[in-house]
């Protein structure tokens, strides 16, 4: 049953909508549980409607919640205690929000940008060294290394939620400082890679375009990178790009 839930959890965002967000995806994942525990009749209908309600969380950590809810449904099916139904809706609501914050911070805010940066560095090295295999390796490294953690979280999170139920929340709370420390280290490593790579690649690009890749142009590049990073907090990316193109046009006319 857990295997079936795991494969179906990959479709959690299939019918993502503004009204009930991931409700259909959650119901899709719970279908093996509903079919096994409530084969037919009124109980099956109620179970289906329970899991067709509003649900929204980070897609990878949703598996932990699915495991918890599957265990709760199993408990309800065997005991018939209606208080468990209140637990189910409370658990879904509270854990969805909490886990979403953690999942977004780690996966979307740190892990994916870091692995993207690694992939970019490898591919760019292939472009500079004119090694085609290195370019392909960059994309492959990005895909393989990135997916290690989400797949592990999806599978082991599902099992953790099923076996421990509310205990899984305590385990994740205990792991939170470790996760935050990991995020800090990944950010430090990313900044170092970006600074080293950025210095090298900006002078290489200037040289390729016929300019002088010297110390002043390197420092100027660094200043522009810092200015863009600080400015982005106040204006949108599209306006920065338009500004850059206008600056280039003015420079081209002035320094004809």
């Amino acid at each position, binding site marked *: 049953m857990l295997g079936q839930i795991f494969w179906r959890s*990959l479709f959690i*965002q*299939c*019918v993502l909508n*503004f009204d009930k967000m991931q*409700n*259909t995806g959650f119901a*899709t994942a719970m*279908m093996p549980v509903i*079919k096994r525990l409530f084969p037919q009749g009124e109980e099956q*209908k109620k179970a*289906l409607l329970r899991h*067709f309600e509003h649900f929204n969380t980070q897609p*990878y950590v949703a598996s932990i919640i699915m495991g918890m809810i599957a265990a709760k449904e199993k408990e309800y099916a065997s005991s018939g205690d209606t208080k468990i139904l209140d637990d189910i809706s409370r658990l879904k609501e509270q854990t969805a929000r909490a886990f979403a914050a953690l999942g977004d911070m780690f996966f979307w805010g740190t892990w994916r*940008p870091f692995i993207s*940066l690694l992939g*970019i560095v490898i*591919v*760019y090295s292939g*472009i500079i060294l004119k090694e*085609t295999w290195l*370019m*392909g390796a960059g*994309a492959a490294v*990005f*895909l393989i290394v*990135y*997916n290690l953690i*989400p797949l592990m979280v999806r599978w082991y999170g599902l099992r953790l939620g099923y076996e421990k139920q509310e205990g899984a929340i305590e385990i994740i709370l205990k792991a939170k400082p470790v996760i935050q420390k990991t995020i800090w280290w990944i*950010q430090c490593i*990313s*900044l*170092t890679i*970006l*600074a*080293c790579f950025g*210095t*090298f690649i*900006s002078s290489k*690009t200037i040289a390729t*375009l016929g*300019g002088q890749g010297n*110390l002043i142009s*390197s*420092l100027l590049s*660094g200043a*522009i*990178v810092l*200015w*863009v*990073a*600080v400015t982005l*907090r106040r204006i949108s*990316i599209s306006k*920065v790009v338009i500004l*850059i193109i206008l600056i*280039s*046009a003015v*420079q081209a006319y002035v320094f*004809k």
Partner: protein
Amino acid sequence: MLLYALIVSICYSLINLDATAIAQTMVSRPIVISLLIGSVLGLLNGDAASGAGIGITIGVFLEFFWINISSLGSSVPANASISSAVATAVICYLSKGAQIEPYWITSGLVYGVCCGYAGGRTDTLLRALNARLVNRATPFVEKGELNAINRLNLQAIGVSLAINTLLCFVLIIVGISLLPVLLKCFPQEVLAALKNSLWLFLLVCMGIALEAFMTKKSVFYFGAVWVIISLIGLI
């Protein structure tokens, strides 16, 4: 040209299912989708390696540009996948058999970025359409029909494929038709500006990546490392 655009659009809409509908394995990220679409286009043109090379170059720039893009809560960001697919397709088509000029790459990238924002609007439309599909399926779910859920998933996938294929097709045709005309009209100074913009575009992308990892004190750390590496490079 139409067949070319159709093939790319179908490839894009299938790969883009990974972005929201299925698995989220990041196959739809620019660094991967550009390589795949560039390889397909290269095969069509008889030179897969060249197409893959163009694709990965575009993919690297756009992966950098969209490094921080993500859908948090109910927000709908720009669509990085369509920007890469369209930029790769347009540049591969324009560069068939010719030496690629840097200003082609810059204009293709800027067009791709604009297409990314258009793709974001389409994703908003898709979510609204999905809400309608859910409302239509609700009476069947209330009757307890389990198959209604499976039908709903298939309908959503079908709608996503159709709309994304159409959008990508239109954007590629517009790009292939419009960009060469615009580039021919521009004077040499503007083409020189576009060529220089490639370096500035790269710096903007690095700025976006820095903003993704930035904390309070990290600006000084980043600046210090940049200066030290620049000095080491000088030596």
